[in-house]
């Protein structure tokens, strides 16, 4: 069980943003994706998660092994914290949400409708979803946005525990997560050259 990305070119709106991205993620390892805003971190994660096709290159990962967490947490405002998690647990076919609620310190909020949560609490709920997916590879897009320092440390602990159980994590972030053992991939160095004017792919921008 490894995630192997080989010479990957991915595009946004039909224009390549990253090319030649290669890395291998072994069990128990984390990889931090860094780079300036707009350099293609989200695009890379969405491509790896299978939400958009790549232009070239290969992604080798076992089927149904990646849990993707985006900027939006996919929380339904009128459902309670437990109901939100329960839905994802049933969708992913895993059993219990109780452990995830305790791990992300959501116990006191468990029966509250999600619309009454603060931004940071919503984020914790979004991250608790990762725990109920039961998937080994986490692809996380700026997971620490709106988290306070304690919650960032809590989250780093959760990631570390996941790694210790043989999981993997691919994290796009700008801040120091406190995971010194993680490798860092600078995406700025893989910036794609723009194709010449009018060279195909124009329709793609509207799809």
């Amino acid at each position, binding site marked *: 069980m490894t995630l192997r990305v080989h010479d990957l070119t991915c595009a946004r709106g039909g224009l390549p943003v990253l090319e030649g991205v290669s890395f291998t993620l072994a069990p128990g390892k984390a990889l931090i994706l860094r780079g300036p805003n707009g350099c293609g971190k989200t695009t890379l994660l*969405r491509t790896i*998660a*299978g*939400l*958009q*096709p790549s232009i070239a290159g290969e992604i080798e990962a076992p089927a*149904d092994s*990646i*849990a*993707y967490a*985006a*900027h*939006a*947490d*996919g*929380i*339904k*405002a*009128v*459902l309670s914290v437990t*109901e939100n998690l*329960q*839905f*994802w647990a*049933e*969708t*992913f*076919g895993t059993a219990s949400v109780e452990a995830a609620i305790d791990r992300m310190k959501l116990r006191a909020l468990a029966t509250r409708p999600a619309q009454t949560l603060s931004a940071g609490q919503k984020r914790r709920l979004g991250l608790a*979803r990762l725990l109920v997916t039961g998937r080994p590879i986490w692809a996380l897009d700026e997971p620490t946005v709106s988290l306070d320092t304690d919650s960032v440390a809590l989250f780093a602990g959760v990631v570390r525990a996941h790694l210790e159980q043989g999981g993997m994590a691919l994290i796009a972030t700008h801040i120091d997560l406190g995971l010194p053992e993680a490798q860092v991939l600078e995406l700025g160095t893989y910036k794609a050259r723009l194709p010449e004017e009018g060279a195909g792919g124009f329709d793609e921008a509207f*799809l």
Partner: protein
Amino acid sequence: MRALLLRDLRLAIRAGGGFGLGLAFFLILAVLVPLGVGPEPDTLALIAPGILWVGALLACLLSLDRIFALDFEDGSLDLLATAPVPLEAVVSIKALAHWITTGLPLVLVSPVLGLLLFLPAEAYGWLILSLLLGTPALSVIGSFGAALTVGLKRGGLLLSLLVLPLYIPTLVFGAEVVSRGAQGLTVGTPLSLLAGITAGAVALLPFASALVLRINLR
């Protein structure tokens, strides 16, 4: 998949879920038509099948854009697309949830509204049967339109324009079943065409919807 259906039904009946919107529209239309057209039973009985079917169709149209737009905005659709459920099943389940919260209530109240419009007694059975057979097609075709327009801001207008032409066969055959039934004629042909459209839409359109959703999620 059961979880998704239950979640969608729960979301629809909780505050702000939009359940009852189509139903209220249907009621208002059927109450206003006798006031606008005049109380003559003969006139009303003549137009009742058409009015009830047009009302049901427009009521369905009202809530279509919610099928995927809400899930798209809060990111659930991305997460559902990466979940171990085929997107075709997600689309079908969401169309089913839309039918249960919109189409089925319309079917159930239609006899009461038929009473307001002096629908002839022999047409009630055909009204219920035609709506029962026809409204699933409205939900499935509508979910295809909703999938096409999911990424667009304020895509409601475009959605209506795209979907209305596809609704016309269902409307024509559905209203035909009721008006032929009201006149005591045989309804076999329009009824089987209506059922055929629904069967075809339910069988084929989820694949098309899933395909356009994947493109829209890029």
